[in-house]
């Protein structure tokens, strides 16, 4: 399933490292406005007890970049800590979209160094 592809950690969008950070409501309003984004689809997993497939809804604060049926990127609201968006996906396709989102949310996009540890981090989160 496209949404379950492992995506490389590319960086994050923040509005400073302390409270209040990014505006969560502004992000939720922005998702349907950007044609490059779609709500993150629900995830299917097998129930270990019944063996049946179950559908788990994705958080409304996450959005994906989908092209030709494949998930190329993902923006997910940080669970805790500074209000920020984590950016994962294709290093060519996603960063321009991240910069656009950062500008709309009055924040900044920070790209991580994509090498060695960076790729490992992206694959296991």
């Amino acid at each position: 399933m496209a949404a379950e592809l492992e995506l490389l950690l590319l960086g994050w969008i923040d509005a400073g490292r302390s409270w209040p950070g990014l505006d969560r409501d502004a992000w939720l309003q922005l998702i349907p406005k950007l044609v490059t984004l779609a709500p993150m689809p629900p995830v299917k997993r097998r129930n270990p007890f019944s063996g049946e497939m179950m559908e788990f809804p994705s958080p409304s604060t996450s959005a994906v970049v989908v092209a030709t049926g494949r998930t190329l990127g993902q923006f997910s609201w940080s669970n805790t800590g500074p209000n920020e968006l984590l950016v994962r996906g294709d290093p060519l396709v996603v960063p321009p979209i991240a910069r656009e989102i950062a500008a709309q949310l009055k924040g900044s996009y920070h790209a991580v160094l994509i090498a060695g540890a960076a790729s490992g981090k992206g694959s296991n989160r």
Partner: protein
Amino acid sequence: MSSHAQVLVLRVEEPSLVAAKVLEQIVKAKIVEPIPTDCVMGGRGYPPGTRIETAIDNPDDVRHVVPNGFEIDFPGKIELYFPPDGGRPWVTCAACRSPLEEDVLLGHLGPRNPFRKRKLARCPGCGDERPIEDWVAHDSAFGNLAFFFWSWHLRVDFIGRVQEWASSTFVVVDYML
């Protein structure tokens, strides 16, 4: 049943002075009672006051649950605060933004021998070396003072008031147990 706290994590020069100032104001506003009780997890905290509704959106819920108090935490050093319910903190280099591997991060968060020279965390990207608390924290926050509000859902205007009382910036960590 799990417990939840919203935690304001600060990094300040004089944590005890900032804590005293915030406690004085929060008691004066009758948001908490002045005498500590066992209303927090594993320690002493200040129970909800008669004007708690000026600070939170769920006063009725909070009055009838345990824990429901206000707790001040002084770790005595700069500590990484993160939700212990399986959330994974991670840090990036302040210079090149390269993430630090999880094992290395955990190694630097353990207890330190104060009589030995401090070990610095080396960046796998640019090679810079710096204390772990000078890395950029994600899904977590470094601080030497933390205000735990057990079962409270803080109102944004109240968080702003605490920021004024503390005269400092902070990070809000959602803490689940």
